[in-house]
């Protein structure tokens, strides 16, 4: 069904390209097969998907060598809208793959573009809604759906279009454990129908037992292909050597860690309360809660359980939020907490405002700091950002942006650091790097709270755990 013969690729024109993103890749996927593409960041798995759905070279220009065939026809020479009849893609970011504002219109969109008659589209939609159990999501505003629900709609719209080949580009990166399981069920339905599926993923545990074959890439080459018994016999060490994440699915809720231990230094939250106007029940209602100070605490819970509201309340961002925090012998009200806590958001790019890394840290230092420049540079050295002083913050990689945001937090003297899903979409090596960074911060005396659904991160560095339920 899908065939790549001796494919090499580099973004940009031949003259500019320093290194190839793909080198001599040969891959044949049979009709009805489910293939996983995995490997460390930058290994070329997304590039392969883009070659198959035609976005390369029609949307992302570059130099392609070799042949890419779909059903025996060359993809490079087909128009994108022709390829769209054969190949459907679910992308990573749930927020930026919708064309419509309402869910019903979104499901119909692919078929409308193909010019199918309305009656045919309606019957296909009803069929998909039934099989995927989407009744509750129909006729809704997509902007009001959770990320998990959005990703379901993205899958459903691919299903309605009825393509034979389905590509999944890190579809679970933004999803919690429960939503990932639901996504898994949808994929099983496709498998039963005999669809040809290719998935690019870092988090491989949730589909490891479903796949027919795992293709492992590194630096643009296929380094290994695993099937059946060979795939099941991999040890944790083998996986780590190939730069892969674990293959057993673990619910973050199942990991046993205490919230506080008897000899911990603690901080005390009192009467934390937040209710959004018009809501029947409060989003946060915590009469009294002790958390460990100077430790790394994981905060887990389903999407929609109120983790984000809890964090906003804790760091004083929510004007309607009530309650106090007692920390290291002092009492902090909402405003005072704004100067004590810092939240590293999921979209770290939205937290960086200036034109250079150094300036970013300089504006965070309290007014009247002695030797501003030296102090800022020392902080950047501690966080391994010394070589990037003059770089534009928006041009840094995801991990570097994260470190820069943390440098700013330290510069402004915040003692409590909150992180919102810091490892979503990260490979094994980068996840471990984040874990080490958190440990380093703890050793410097910072209290770290991490909202996460990444069981591997929790095992790697968290010492305490708080579970939030509705």
């Amino acid at each position: 069904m899908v065939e790549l013969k001796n494919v090499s690729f580099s973004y940009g024109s031949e003259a500019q390209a320093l290194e190839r993103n793909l080198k001599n890749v040969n891959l044949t996927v049979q009709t009805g097969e489910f293939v996983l593409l995995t490997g460390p960041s930058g290994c070329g798995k997304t590039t392969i998907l883009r070659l198959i759905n035609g976005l390369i070279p029609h949307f992302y220009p570059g130099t392609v060598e070799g042949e890419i065939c779909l059903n025996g026809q060359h993809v490079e020479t087909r128009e994108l809208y022709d390829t769209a009849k054969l190949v459907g893609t679910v992308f990573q970011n749930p927020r930026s793959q919708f064309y419509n504002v309402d869910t019903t219109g979104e499901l119909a969109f692919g078929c409308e573009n193909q010019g199918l008659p309305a009656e045919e589209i309606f019957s296909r939609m009803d069929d998909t809604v039934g099989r995927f159990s989407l009744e509750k999501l129909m006729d809704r505003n997509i902007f009001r759906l959770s990320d998990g629900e959005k990703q379901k709609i993205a899958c459903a719209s691919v299903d309605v279009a009825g393509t034979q080949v389905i590509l999944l580009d890190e579809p679970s990166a933004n999803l919690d454990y429960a939503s990932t399981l639901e996504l898994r069920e949808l994929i099983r339905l496709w498998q039963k129908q005999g669809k040809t599926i290719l998935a690019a993923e870092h988090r491989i545990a949730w589909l490891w037992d479903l796949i027919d074959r795992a293709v492992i890439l590194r630096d643009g080459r296929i380094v290994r292909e695993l099937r059946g018994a060979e795939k099941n016999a991999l040890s944790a060490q083998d996986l780590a050597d190939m730069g892969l994440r674990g293959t057993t699915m673990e619910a973050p809720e199942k990991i046993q860690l205490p919230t506080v231990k008897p000899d911990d230094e603690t901080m005390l939250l009192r009467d934390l309360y937040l209710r959004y106007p018009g809501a029947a029940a409060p989003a946060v209602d915590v009469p009294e809660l002790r958390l460990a100070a100077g430790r790394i605490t994981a905060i887990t819970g389903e999407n929609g359980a109120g983790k984000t509201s809890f964090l906003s309340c804790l760091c004083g961002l929510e004007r309607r939020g009530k309650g106090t925090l007692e920390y290291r012998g002092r009492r902090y009200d909402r405003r005072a907490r704004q100067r004590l806590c810092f939240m590293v958001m999921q979209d770290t790019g939205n937290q960086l405002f200036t034109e250079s890394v150094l300036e970013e840290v300089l504006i965070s230092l309290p007014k009247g700091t002695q030797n501003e420049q030296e102090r800022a540079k020392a902080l950047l050295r501690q966080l391994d950002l010394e070589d990037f002083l003059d770089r534009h913050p928006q041009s840094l990689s995801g991990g570097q942006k994260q470190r820069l945001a943390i440098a700013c937090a330290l510069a402004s003297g915040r003692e409590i650091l909150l992180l919102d899903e810091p490892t979503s979409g990260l490979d094994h090596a980068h996840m471990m790097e984040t874990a080490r960074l958190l440990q380093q911060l703890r050793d410097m005396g910072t209290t770290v709270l991490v909202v996460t659904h990444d069981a591997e991160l929790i095992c790697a560095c968290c010492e305490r755990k708080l579970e939030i339920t509705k």
Partner: protein
Amino acid sequence: MAYSSERSQEARRSFLDPRTKLALVLVLALFVMGGLGAEQMKPLKTALSALPFLLLLAERQWGRFARGIAMLVLGYGLLFALPYLPGVLNFLALMCGGILTRFVVTVVMGEYLIATTSVSEFISAMEHLRMPQAITIPMSVMFRLFPTIGAEWRSIRRAMRMRGIHLGGAKASQVLEYQLVPMMTSTVRIGEELSASALTRGLGGSTRRTNICRIGFRAQDAVLLLGCLLVVAAWILELCGVKLW
């Protein structure tokens, strides 16, 4: 009963045809916001100004209705209070009141258009008007662009508060610049991902698109379109110096 997308699509059909809504936005923009027409047009303009509010009520958009009325009341309140205000305040009230009373009605009409029209209905209407895809596609993206930009904006404002950068703080002069940098980067990124996704779903093909929505003129459309024509006719007559009433 099993879900039927056809039935629910029919139930969601808007009170007006999208083309009628577009015509109304245009007429309001020209005459109420743009201020075309002189003394004779006054009663017509007053009638036009009431329209968007009535339409919002007809489609049960209570929140938008209340917000629109509140802005309008504020605008007229400021103008009413004008004689009692001193110096700078007087000037500010004149400016804000003037802007509000002039713009609110048309903005409310635009909001009504966006809130009650689905992307599918809009594209369908544009095709009936024989608009080329090069115009239809960018315009239809607008429907989801505003909410997207709104969400990004809120997220950036939160981030700034977190970093301790406030209006009126130590670095007030640079606040706007700080907001624009991440805003532009993320808008460009989202725009690119959005286009990639739409292209893999066959947008821009040479086959004629179909649409699942039903649009078409009904009695209410005829009445309002006739109204629009009357307004334009009255304006032309006024220009020619004909005394109407």
